């Protein structure tokens, strides 16, 4: 089991414990692995909803979708086995490749920009000034509503021809023109939307920053380290568990973005498929064209890719993530 605990997308986070190294539930003081029959019965009784949910809604469906990925199934007729045809078709499908590209750009550019912004603002807010609580809430608010349909609609309204963004551009002497109808500008627009929601990771960074003992900064300052050096050698290592946690969370979340793209592009995937995110194309294939075998194949490719990326993140984390337990 890896050393860090993780969790699925969403604005809140149970951060990583600075000192914990195990993710299994505390075995309490006793630590004796004796399982009384009463305990076993109780355990399964309490866990029954989860077990039922897991079996029926997660494990079962996962196996079924694995099966479907090798079939041609359109809901009307029984699934027809086609071997690896779906997978070979996938990689010859220009739209699939486009959707993979769109998603990759969004993840590999959007996530770092979002985290960098979150960290920057967290550093800014970390100084001892009044009004912290209010500011923190202000920056956090967008993350709560960012993925909503309402915001997607507003975003679209702001980035069309002669819209707010257009006016601002022209004010600064940049060429005008809306972003929504321009396939080259739709991705920046989506990334801006993602970055706008930096509040959630920012709050977590802020909490992490507050946990860094002031003595460490003072000691480094006494040793003659300037602010930049201190940032690199004290802040970043101490913050690394939180950084890792945010990175993991945001990356997995970014792969699953759907409703904003759907609304902004009017359900089409944007001008010339420029907002055709992977999950969006999956939805179109599965629920508009009813090619469910194909869509299942897409889903499994996604699982593999996310799995690989997660594994890579975990592996490389050993190199740069320091837990306070180790540092002392």
């Amino acid at each position, binding site marked *: 089991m890896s050393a860090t605990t*993780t*969790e*699925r997308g*969403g604005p*809140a*986070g*149970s*951060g990583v*414990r600075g000192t914990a190294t195990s993710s*299994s*539930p505390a075995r309490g003081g006793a630590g004796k*692995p004796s399982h009384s029959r009463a*305990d076993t019965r*109780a*355990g399964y009784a*309490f*866990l029954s*909803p*989860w077990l*039922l*949910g897991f079996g*029926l*809604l*997660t494990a*079962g469906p*996962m196996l079924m979708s694995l099966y*479907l990925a090798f079939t041609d199934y359109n*809901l009307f007729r029984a699934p027809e086995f086609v071997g690896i045809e779906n997978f070979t078709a996938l990689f010859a499908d220009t739209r699939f490749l486009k959707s993979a590209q769109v998603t990759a750009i969004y993840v590999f550019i959007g996530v770092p920009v979002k985290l960098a912004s979150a960290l920057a603002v967290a550093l800014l*807010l970390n100084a001892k*000034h009044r*009004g912290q*609580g209010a*500011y923190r*809430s202000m920056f956090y*608010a*967008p993350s*709560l509503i960012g993925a*909503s*349909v*309402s*915001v997607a*609609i*507003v975003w679209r*309204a702001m980035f069309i021809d002669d*819209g*707010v963004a257009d*006016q601002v551009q022209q004010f600064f002497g940049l060429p005008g023109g809306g972003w929504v109808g321009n396939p080259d500008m739709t991705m920046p627009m989506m990334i801006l939307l993602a970055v*706008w929601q930096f509040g959630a990771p920012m709050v*977590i960074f*802020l*909490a992490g920053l507050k946990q860094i003992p002031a003595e460490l900064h003072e000691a480094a300052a006494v040793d003659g380290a300037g602010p930049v050096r201190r940032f690199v050698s004290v802040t970043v290592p101490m913050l690394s568990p939180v950084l890792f946690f945010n990175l993991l969370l945001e990356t*997995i979340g970014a792969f699953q973005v*759907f409703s904003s793209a759907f*609304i902004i592009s009017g359900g089409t995937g944007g001008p010339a498929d420029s907002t055709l995110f992977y*999950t969006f194309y*999956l939805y179109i294939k*599965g*629920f508009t064209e009813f090619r469910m075998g194909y869509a299942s194949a897409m*889903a499994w490719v*996604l699982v593999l890719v996310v799995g690989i990326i997660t594994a890579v993140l975990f592996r490389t984390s050993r190199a740069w993530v320091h837990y306070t337990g180790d540092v002392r």
Partner: protein
Amino acid sequence: MTAMTTVSATASAVATRKKRTRSVAFHVLVLAVAAVILYPGLWMVMSSFKPSSDIVGNVNLWPETWTLHNYVSAFGGIGGVSFWTFVLNSLILAVGSVVGIVLSATVSAYAFARISFPGRGVYFAIMIGTMLLPFHVVIIPQYILFNSLGMVNTFLPLLAPKFLATEAFFVFLMVQFLRGLPRELDEAARIDGCGHWGIFRLVLLPLMRPAVITSSIFAFIWSWNDFLGPLLYLKRPDTYPLPIALRLYVDQTSVSDYGAQMAMAVLALVPVLLFFVVFQRYLVDGVATQGLKG
């Protein structure tokens, strides 16, 4: 003596001035960033009070002419379905989700955190794993399952998973919280004759209130904003929750009626914003401190 006091007095005066300038600079900078961040939200609200023709290119927040016409349109509903029906649908889904999640997550968390039984470690690892799993790998089979059970076009496919602890995030949140509660409480209750159910119900659950509150708030908001689920399973306009109704509204109103769209967008977000304003401390604290204890 006097010379030194003068010097130190001057030094401290300089220091105070420096501190104040830094403080002012700080506030200015943060407010500037905050202004940019909050602009879209404010623009949305203010635009909802402007006539449609004034909205698109208008960078100015303050409406030249105030109008309530947009809200009148929004309240008019769509195709014979009243606005309040959409609100009610969203409410049913959200409250249902909260109830389901609180019930199933607390119970599961108790099992993971407080009961020792064979397989617990494996299950816990699996649960964590589901948080990393892209949801899309299960939507098609789930859809097929619910379709064959005849549950499509009802709220059931959206609510049932909540009652079965499929949202691992909340289970995890509660497990973390429970780990912070001392085992002595369990022991004391056991001595008093309580079995697991008693310990759970009478001792730990009341103490879990902060985690339950935080979870409820997030569960409510996430359900309120949920789009993909209702999109898949709800096909009749009179069952639409607000996000789907909003989309239908946007599809139908001609492209120039931004006023009505803004008004409806604002109305759809009102409960979320209300929750935020009232419970912001729980939310932000919950995010920040939940796992970063000591």
